[in-house]
């Protein structure tokens, strides 16, 4: 134990500005529909992780190019605390441009 441990910070005091920005204004929030996939001539992949009963659930939508298997666009929906929202947003962003592999 040490001085810094005793008062105990709040979880929130540790959130960086980047995390806070993403929590308050996620850039990849949304859905991709089958229709949108068809219009783009691509394939829609939807994946779910987690569960509301556990406090963390995310659904990722990928627009995948049929030929190259590259992810053209990614969107997310998320049930969870602020950091869950922020990390889901980053995850969606990082997915874009990569192959499904």
């Amino acid at each position, binding site marked *: 134990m040490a001085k810094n441990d005793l008062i105990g910070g709040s979880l929130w005091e540790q959130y960086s500005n980047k995390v806070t920005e993403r929590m308050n204004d996620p850039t990849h929030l949304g859905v991709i529909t089958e229709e949108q996939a068809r219009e783009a001539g691509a394939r829609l992949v939807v994946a779910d992780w987690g569960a509301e*009963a556990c*406090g963390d659930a995310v659904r990722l939508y990928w627009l995948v190019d049929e030929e190259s298997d590259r992810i053209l666009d990614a969107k997310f929906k998320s049930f969870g605390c*602020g950091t869950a929202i922020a990390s889901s947003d980053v995850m969606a962003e990082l997915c874009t441009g990569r192959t499904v592999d």
Partner: protein
Amino acid sequence: MSSPGASDRIYLDSNATTIVDPLVKEAMDPFHCRLYGNPNSLHTFGTEVHAYMRLAMDRLYSGINAAEEDDIVINSCATEGNNTVLKGLYFQVLASGGKKRIITTQVEHPSVANAARMLEETGVEVLYLPVDERGIVSRDILAEHLDPDRTALVSVMWANNETGLINPVKELAELCRESGVPFHTDAVQAIGKVPVDVREVPADFLTISAHKFHGPKGVGGLYVRKGSPLIPLLHGGEQMANRRAGTVNVPGLIGMGLAMELAVENLEFEQTTVRRLRDRLEDAILAIPQTTVIGDRSLRTPNTILASFEGVEGEAMIWDLNRNGVAASTGSACASESLEPNPTFVAIGIDDRLAHTGIRFSISRFTTEEEIDRSVEVIRGAVERLRGISFTEEASP
């Protein structure tokens, strides 16, 4: 009553702590730089404080209708009071090898629950009673499990801090009295919200905490009925007639005394006006689709709402509310370590999916109608934004 701390921010977390009543602050003031003597000292600096302490004690006794021959031991907080009762048992068991079982509940405050867990580690058997479908600990459930031959103590809180649900402590205490088993109740959330009368409710031990009824932090009281054995947690000087060592927090005691008197004086206001404001907030919350409130409001303290907004995680909601100047709290997992669902949720039959959606709003006699109405706007906005982010709303836009 307008908020003395008036600002743009709105405080709806009174079950966590309360604003100190300005009258209480004023009453405490002289005891820092003028009447600052140690009450144990022989000289006048010490002795002149006694009359004020006696007045504060009178107010505390009168506030819970304690008899002169009972004790209200002044300590640092309810956690200390709860630990004193439960751990005192441990020392007793060690010393005399007597009854090795205690009965408590699944919905106690951590200062009871964790002390009970510590007792388990030392070999005491602890039974944690569940709540029923109303969310309260019934007389029947206690009667079913109470075996006076083996049970050294029953501890059931008067009102729950998360839900506001009130247990039938009078019946529970009477059952224990009939069976010859000591009964302890953590009354922290009851003082100032409902009448607390130890002649009505034959509890042997009762815990109070000043900062929950507009008194200062750092002072509490443990009521001990005459004849009940009390093994001190703190040994040392002869303060509190050897029941609890340590120089008494004099300013705290003075403050707590007045806070108790004011709390009891305002009971009717709490039961009428505060209840009305709480109901106003609750009705507005219930008007938001796919929203539940835990427990029948007639079974709750008049100031508390534990709401569940489907698709909205607790910590995220608290964050959004805070950003918009509204303070509330949650028992959601992000904010705590456990992934286990709240036992009250399970007992009442709340869906697993809602386990992390609980938001607690708790007002006080200092909350205004205007604050309630402004909060409703913020709550609506936050729910909307967060439901826009969580996919559960796709099914029902």
